[in-house]
């Protein structure tokens, strides 16, 4: 098959599945589920074939033109899009299979599966987009699909609010991105990504360094929103209100990954700008630490994973901003796999024990779920960065790049975040695997706790998390980058940091006489700060939300009392003048006569004077 048909199969099959499910199969959830799954399988196979065919020239078609703007619709087929497209299709497929178990009893299955399909379509189209505006459009549709999925159980007010928050916060970021994109158009008149990146004729040669810095910073605002970087990160933990498979999708290969992927796409532009990389390094390092500190005190397994996503996204951006495309892509791909795995594991626990609390899951016998617990341990080890699992190599690339370019402060920050990561991950593992006391779980479930359609994807991703770390060389090859082999000695600091983190977690939670309170609880002030999530949400609610509502109230007052009120008053005064002037016509002949005489007299006087 030729490339175009394969691309259309990859990106548009989910769209058709979405349309068919939503329009025709609203009353037949099983059929809808099958259609969506089939679409996903077709899309996965097509993306694998595309990947095997290797990078080729982009395909472009004219979408429309208006004035000086020419908008294209097309597909880019380079290393990042081929690899990540395949990962997206793979993880979406796993999550759809898993959902057949997780959502088996939901009455609204059609809506759920069709939205998943919409999600897959938007994300895949975003990944392969050749045109910046096309990418923006699908970027927004990714946001829309996650809005619907986060708020899937919309009857729960918390879910509806979380969906709204996600939409609004990413929208704030999108304003920056949108302005940045329009500024690019204004400067160059084109949206074509390869042309913009061309080192001889691209954007960086056409605008002043100052403008380039502004453009990249504005685009980064969009990335901050989507990839949940401080200060636009607070929507992500709330987004846990969605069904767990949705969280798995949202946090691994779609939605949040879109921000990082955009940075990968436009990496040369960011590197050509002057101050932008430093700004990104600062924000991402801070975010990585901030999110890790919250993850180490939270008790909700999904929240811990959510904050860990924020922190790991920070790592990816650090790697990219430090100048290594490879580090960013590598960590994006490995993270997608092990984070999806961890969320799916947490979903099985939640499904089985109906609680999100890690200690309770442990007490109720979480470790008896063998496949899930294996997945949790391996995924956690990969997240913590234990060699030789996936996360170790990709994080090592990031440290190496930071050290190579002499960003020592940021390297220290990244090491600290890596230590915290190892700590909170193993805290999670120990809480579940080594509970303080074991309760008999009252098994009131009818089916098995680990049904095959949920266990299967978990096992597949477990294998993925085990082996992806060894594919660094191949990934670098796809990116046309030569990956350096790091000597064992260079890796020692990274290994040491992780080892300390795991060890501290063991002391706090793992050993048999452990207190099961984190070391941080000894420092009351910090503990309070972390438990309250650095008071960022409280600040937003107290200041920004109130300010917006106050302005709205002020404008409303101005409308009703000032503007509209004055028009009303004008109208009413005219009416009153009319009413009063009618009193002159009171029907008394004598009065009319008197008025006539007076007026005639004045006129006569006036004429006489003249």
């Amino acid at each position, binding site marked *: 098959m030729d490339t175009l048909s394969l691309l259309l199969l990859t990106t548009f099959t989910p769209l058709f599945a979405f349309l068919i499910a939503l329009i025709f199969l609203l009353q037949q959830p099983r059929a809808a589920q099958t259609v969506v799954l089939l679409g996903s399988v077709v899309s996965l196979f097509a993306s694998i074939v595309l990947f095997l065919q290797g990078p080729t020239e982009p395909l472009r078609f004219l*979408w*429309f*033109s*208006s*004035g*000086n*703007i020419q908008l294209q619709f097309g597909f880019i087929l380079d290393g990042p899009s081929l690899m990540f497209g395949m990962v997206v299709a793979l993880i979406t497929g796993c999550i759809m299979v898993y959902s057949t178990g997780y959502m088996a009893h939901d009455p609204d299955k059609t809506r759920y599966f069709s939205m998943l399909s919409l999600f897959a379509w938007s994300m895949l189209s975003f990944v392969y987009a050749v045109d910046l505006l096309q990418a*923006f*459009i*699908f970027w*927004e*549709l990714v946001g*829309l699909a996650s809005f619907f999925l986060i*708020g899937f159980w*919309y*009857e*729960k*007010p918390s*879910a*509806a*609010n979380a*969906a*709204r928050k996600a*939409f*609004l916060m990413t*929208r*704030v970021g*999108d*304003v920056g991105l*949108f*302005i940045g994109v*329009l*500024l690019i*158009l*204004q400067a160059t008149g084109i949206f074509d990504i390869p042309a913009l990146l061309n080192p001889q004729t691209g954007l960086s040669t056409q605008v002043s360094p100052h403008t380039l810095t502004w453009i990249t910073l504005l685009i980064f605002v969009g990335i901050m929103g989507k990839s949940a970087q401080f200060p636009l990160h607070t929507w992500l933990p709330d987004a846990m209100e969605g069904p767990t498979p949705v969280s798995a999708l949202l946090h691994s290969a779609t939605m949040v990954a879109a921000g990082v992927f955009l940075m990968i796409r436009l990496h040369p532009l960011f590197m050509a700008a002057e101050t932008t990389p430093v700004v990104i390094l600062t924000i991402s390092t801070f975010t990585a630490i901030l999110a890790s500190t919250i993850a180490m005190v939270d008790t909700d397994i999904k929240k811990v994973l959510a904050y860990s996503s924020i922190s790991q996204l920070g790592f990816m951006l650090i790697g990219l901003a430090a100048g290594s495309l490879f580090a960013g892509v590598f960590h994006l791909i490995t993270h997608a796999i092990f984070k999806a795995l961890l969320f799916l594991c947490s979903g099985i626990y939640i499904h089985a024990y109906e609680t999100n609390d890690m200690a309770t899951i442990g007490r109720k016998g979480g470790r008896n779920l063998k496949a899930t617990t294996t997945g949790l341990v391996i995924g956690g080890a990969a997240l913590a960065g234990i060699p030789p699992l996936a996360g170790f190599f990709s994080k090592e690339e990031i440290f190496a790049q930071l050290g190579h370019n002499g960003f020592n402060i940021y390297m220290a920050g990244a090491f600290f975040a890596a230590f915290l990561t190892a700590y909170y991950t193993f805290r999670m593992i120990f809480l579940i695997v080594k509970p303080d006391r074991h309760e008999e779980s009252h098994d009131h479930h009818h089916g098995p706790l680990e049904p095959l359609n949920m266990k299967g994807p978990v096992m597949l991703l477990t294998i993925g998390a085990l082996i992806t770390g060894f594919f660094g060389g191949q990934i670098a090859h796809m990116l046309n980058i030569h990956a350096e082999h790091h000597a064992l000695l260079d890796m020692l600091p990274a290994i040491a940091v992780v080892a300390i983190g795991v060890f501290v977690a063991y002391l706090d939670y793992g050993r048999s006489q452990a207190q099961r309170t984190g070391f941080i609880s000894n420092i009351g002030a910090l503990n309070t700060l972390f438990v309250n999530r650095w008071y960022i949400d409280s600040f937003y609610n107290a200041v920004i939300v109130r300010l*917006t*509502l106050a*302005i*709205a*109230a002020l*404008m*409303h007052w101005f*409308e009703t009392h000032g*503007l*509209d009120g004055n*028009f*009303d008053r004008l*109208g009413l005064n005219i009416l009153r003048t009319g009413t009063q002037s009618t009193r002159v016509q009171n029907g008394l002949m004598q009065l009319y006569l008197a008025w006539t005489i007076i007026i005639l007299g004045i006129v006569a006087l006036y004429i006489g004077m003249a």
Partner: protein
Amino acid sequence: MLSSILLIPVFTLLIIIFTPNRAVKFVRAICVLSGFFTLVLSLQLWMGYDPIRGGIQFEELIPWVPALGISYHLGVDGFSTILVMLNSIVYFTGVLTMWDLEKRVKEYFAFMVLLVIGVYGVFMSLDIFFLFFFYEIAVVPMYPLIIIWGSGNKEYAGMKLMLFLLAGSALLFPGLLAIYHASGLNTFDIVALSKHAFDPEFQIFVYPFIYAGFGVLAGMFPFHGWSPTGHVAAPSAVSMLHAGVLMKLGAFGILTVGMRLLPEGAVYWAPTFCTLAATGVIYGAFVAIRQSDFKFVIGFSSVSHMGIVLLGLNLAVLGQAGIEALNGAVFQMFAHGIMTALFFSTVGYIYDRAHSKTIADFGGLGSQMPRAVSIFIVAGLCGAGLPGLASFWPEMLVFLAALKTYPIVGAVIIVGLVLTAVYILRVFNLAFFGPPNERWNNLKSLDLSGLHILPRAILVAVLVFFGFIPRVMLDLINSTTEAFLGRF
């Protein structure tokens, strides 16, 4: 062609008038038929308009009062072709929306058809006298439509709307007569007048009369007060026509009379009116955040969205990004028309069954009326400028032009996108999401079905179609834009 589009509703009106009161079904049937045929003819017009040749096509010229230079002169350019289409879509779907009406059906449809005739007339007229004549025909039926079939504080709303619009006409009338006299050509013909170069000082003096006069109808800040009040009180199909089409008459008037005949005046006043329009965009959005009534939210969102149209018109004459701005403004007229029609037809549907349009009365309506709510959500997302729905393109074009011309204004109105999302999502969360309110359990069996889906489905399809294939629209608009901006 044009005369037939105009005459179908005229004959419909005559037939309705001579139909007995009780022949309700016949009146409805005749209206649907007439809506359908005008829609088909408008489609033919769209297909028949040659975008490569551009300019005014399908001209018809019959001298009417030669002594005064009045002639029955019809013709459409790219702009008016799509607006005729808009009117046909809203007319057809509006008739279907009011299918269930039981109160004084004959009179209702008679007034509605009269309004539609007026709108067609304005979009097609190339003669100032006829343009103004049709303009008044379109405006006047609003009054009885609101005070007879409306709801709430309808006498007040109807009176207010009428007074505002007549005040606008009062500004407009002397302006139009001044143009007629100053040219000295003894003609009301727009084509002839547009070739005459008016004295720049005269243009600068007269332009604000024309702009503000038409602007009132376009919901121009700060003369927008009539519009949300009017929307709220009017029955749903009237709100559809009112927000969907009638407000576009104002913007179209500015374009076709103000900017076409008085280009230098337009350039002189553009910075001022840009500022007012941008203020309206933000102001409308902020006020909408505070509303407690569905229709007030939509009403103020219209003020905000029509601000984008007016902003685009004013940016167009400033030169830096004229083509984008004007394309955006005209496209936005169409997209906003369809979108508000969808909004009002759906809110009207819910109101007719629940007899409440207070947002706080609802809550969790999503599980009781999933189809109606889904359709409202589509309209809301379109209002929030989501890509994939028609409004995205015009807003993007206007934003682009604004960034190029006045970067600060551009940045501020793009922030307006967030405000739009704030008030739209507020409505979603308060009324549609959350635990279902048991008071409305009776609505479960009353969700959109059968014939009621048809008009909304048409509107949704139009929004999605132009959201993904904007080329169809932009080719047509572009054919006229470049020539139009040639004189600036």
